[in-house]
């Protein structure tokens, strides 16, 4: 009897798993075929009216000139996994899947976007993506991070985009990637193009301070770490944000103390600045004085920075609830705090919430604190979002087209439909930040020149810097004189609410960033090495735990030395060797 059950079970097991495997392989192979077929079909249908019947063969197709903004002859369906913001308010009954943008995409280009699944943006989305990867149950396309991209490349789950990119990418899209050298190389493995990367958002952590508080107390903006400490102390002592004034806003629960080489764009609300001003670069791989790779978190400078932060925490300068707080953005929005660190685009996020509560809140960014030598240091951010296309996707070309359309495909009808509203990642499927490498610089400088009357609307380079042009059309109404001051009083917040935040963020945050003299420090490694794949969870845990405990005073500063030793023994030395080979 028992034997019978066992046999039956094993037969079932084996057949079921075989079925699963067969499904996978068959799917991949089979779809590969149909993919070509379809691409060819749509090709014939619309893009190349003069095409002969043999348009299906790859060679001739590649040489045809394809209009990247042409409508597909037949509706083309693309399934995606989508990150949504649960708090985002769509117009009327619109949803992330069916809104003014997706309807336009469908009517105008015959691209139908279907959601395989949705998840709240942030950790929920990342988790869902990882699950999709590990179960090999992939939508046609989605936006992933670097670790996920590498995992997918290793697993052979991605479509090689070389050909469709060559054929369908608009000249503007190609120009963007050409102006960001190395970007496409970073996602090319064995000669195969596996993703469309986001362009680097220039980002260094600036010190954001309530200037109205500074003025009230008769203080000057900070230069050194010492200045910063004095200001924070003054804010607390004078109860500028009420009885529970927070000195310097810190990391929230689940957040990190600093940006790392695996997640480097986000300097938002962490303490990178305090490390940089100590010439410390935790979380990235830097060169020591002999030119060898060293992990920034293990250097004496990092220890020094931790010692300083430990001291500041004890004095109450740093947020007491650092690392435990549910939401640090809330602290800023509620007006409890007057100092935080963040990139120039912080003016997009929580500051508007604070201004809503207190229209006089004059948040100003400073390229500070400086290090002992008077330099403003930052590590260089790299893009961390990638559009990837599954191997089994039927229409990879549609994904390429969508990317071009999102930035450069706008027509009069689109402008009419979306008048007064910037399409965000909530309306636009597979939203990717794409811009020429100097996009921010161009926008800030040309807006300034336009305000001064030194530049006219028609002087704007609309093709490559469309967004700067859009903003210039609205800037007159919003920015009041004097034009060289970016205090909140010099903006008319109510005149053009749709554009206020954009212009405020560019002129207030963007100008400080563009003008800053930044000493950039780059990470040698930008992705995991072989040994990291297995050891990093453990090492990162050790690091996070030790650093937070040192700052919060539950470990002595010398725990740092124990950490370095343990870190080296538990795989760090081996990883350093591997990184040394990269440089």
């Amino acid at each position, binding site marked *: 009897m028992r034997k019978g059950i066992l046999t039956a*079970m094993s037969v*079932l*097991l084996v057949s*079921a*798993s075989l079925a*699963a*495997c067969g499904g*996978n392989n068959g799917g991949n192979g089979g779809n590969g075929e149909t993919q070509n077929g379809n691409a060819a079909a749509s090709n014939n249908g619309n893009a190349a009216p003069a095409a002969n019947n043999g348009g299906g063969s790859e060679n001739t197709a590649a040489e045809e000139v394809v209009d990247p903004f042409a409508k597909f002859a037949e509706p083309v369906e693309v399934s995606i996994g989508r990150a949504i913001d649960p708090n985002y308010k769509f117009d009327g009954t619109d949803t992330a899947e069916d809104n003014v943008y997706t309807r336009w995409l469908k009517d105008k280009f015959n691209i139908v976007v279907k959601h395989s699944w949705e998840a709240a943006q942030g950790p929920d989305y*990342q*988790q869902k993506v*990882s*699950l999709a*990867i*590990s*179960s*090999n149950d992939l939508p046609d396309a989605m936006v992933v991070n670097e*670790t*996920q991209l590498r*995992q*997918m490349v*290793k*697993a*052979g*789950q991605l479509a090689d985009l070389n050909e469709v990119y060559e054929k369908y990418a608009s000249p503007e899209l190609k120009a963007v990637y050409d102006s960001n050298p190395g970007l496409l190389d970073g996602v090319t493995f064995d000669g195969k193009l596996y993703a469309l990367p986001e362009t680097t958002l220039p980002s260094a952590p600036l010190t954001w301070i309530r200037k109205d508080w500074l003025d009230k107390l008769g203080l000057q903006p900070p230069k050194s770490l010492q200045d910063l400490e004095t200001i924070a102390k003054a804010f607390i002592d004078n109860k500028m944000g009420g009885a*529970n004034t927070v000195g310097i806003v810190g990391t929230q*629960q*689940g957040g990190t103390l600093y940006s790392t080489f695996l997640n480097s764009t986000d300097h938002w609300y962490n303490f990178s600045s305090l490390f940089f001003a100590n010439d410390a670069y935790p979380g990235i791989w830097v060169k020591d004085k002999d030119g060898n790779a060293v992990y920034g978190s293990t250097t004496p400078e990092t220890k020094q920075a931790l010692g300083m932060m430990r001291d500041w925490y004890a004095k109450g300068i740093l947020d*007491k*609830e650092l*690392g*435990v*707080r*549910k939401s640090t953005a809330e602290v800023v929005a509620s007006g409890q705090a007057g100092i935080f660190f963040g990139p120039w685009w912080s003016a997009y996020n929580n500051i508007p919430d604070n201004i809503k509560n207190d229209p006089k809140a004059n948040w100003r960014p400073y390229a500070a604190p400086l290090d002992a030598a008077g330099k403003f240091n930052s590590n260089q951010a790299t893009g961390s979002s990638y559009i990837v296309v599954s191997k089994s996707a039927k229409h990879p070309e549609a994904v390429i087209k969508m990317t071009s359309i999102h930035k450069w495909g706008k027509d009069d009808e689109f402008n009419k439909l979306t008048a007064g509203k910037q399409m965000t990642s909530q309306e636009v499927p597979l939203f990717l930040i794409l811009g020429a490498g100097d996009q921010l610089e161009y926008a800030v400088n040309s807006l300034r020149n336009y305000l001064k009357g030194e530049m006219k609307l028609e002087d704007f380079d609309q093709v490559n810097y469309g967004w700067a042009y859009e903003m210039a059309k609205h800037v007159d109404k919003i920015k009041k004189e004097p034009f060289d001051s970016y205090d909140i009083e010099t903006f008319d917040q109510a005149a053009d609410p749709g554009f206020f935040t954009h212009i405020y963020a560019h002129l207030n945050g963007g100008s400080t960033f563009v003008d800053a003299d930044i000493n950039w420090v780059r990470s040698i490694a930008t992705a995991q090495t072989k040994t990291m*794949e*297995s050891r*990093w*969870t*453990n090492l990162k*845990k050790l690091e*996070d*735990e030790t*650093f*937070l*405990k040192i700052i*919060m005073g*539950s470990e002595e500063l010398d725990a740092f030395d124990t950490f370095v030793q343990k870190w080296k023994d*538990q795989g760090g030395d081996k990883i350093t060797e591997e990184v040394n080979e990269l440089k």
Partner: protein
Amino acid sequence: MRTKGFAKHYVLMLLPGLIWLFFYNLFPMYGILTAFKDFNPGVGILKSPWIGLENFRYMFELDDSKLIFRNTIFIAFAKMVGNLIVPLTFALMLNEVKNKLFTRTVQTAVYLPHFLSWVIVAGMMLDIFSYNGPVNQALAALGFEKGLFFADAGIFPALIVGSDVWKEFGFNAIIFFAALTSINPEMYEAAAIDGASQWKRLIHITLPSILPVAVLLATLSMGNILNAGFDQIFNLYNPTVYSTGDIIDTWVYRAGLIDMQYGLATAVGLLKSVVGFFLISVSYVLAYRFANYRIF
């Protein structure tokens, strides 16, 4: 098996359950193979190359493994004890109150938190115990030093166990209420006539009558002992309390889903299952010994 012709239709009735069990519980178990493989999602579990016990060897090398097993067992055991004693005591106390309206109201009020998700309860907890929250204000008013409870590795397990017991005791008490109502009132009447005080009646009638239920619940929860509560801890922890708060499930989450070390995460998860299986077997024997409870 005692009578002929007994088995057939009963076995047939078992079928839907067995099918369900197979597809949802047994079939997914082939995923365990991941623990022995260099898993590559692109080719699936079966075709990924074997690496033998490599993942297990690495797991035992890690300092973390001992730590997370110790934390898991400690937290889960404390929860088990708390979730047994508190509801039992509560049920006994409320049982002595004769005002029906009052008991009903209290019962309803205390079992409500069971239906809140941990995301909500954790948010409340973090607020209540925050640096300027009510608990710290009360402490300050009494002249004590303010503290950051959720960043204190020494207090963290107590907060975890305490909040879990608070959330669940009302709901767990329901089964004891049911057991209490099934006690024959004639026993109490007889005892009262014999002159037994209320205390004596509690000790000699009530307690022995519901003891089997208590033992049964205790032994059954043994099988669950390695589930220390992912949702709860995930929503409350931070790196400063890893040393006492990181449990198997949260670690597996970080290693498996965040860092995509599927093999290692599965290996740790598998070890958890093996220990769980062992504990269930032990508890089954114990349940038979002490509560005369058995399935076969």
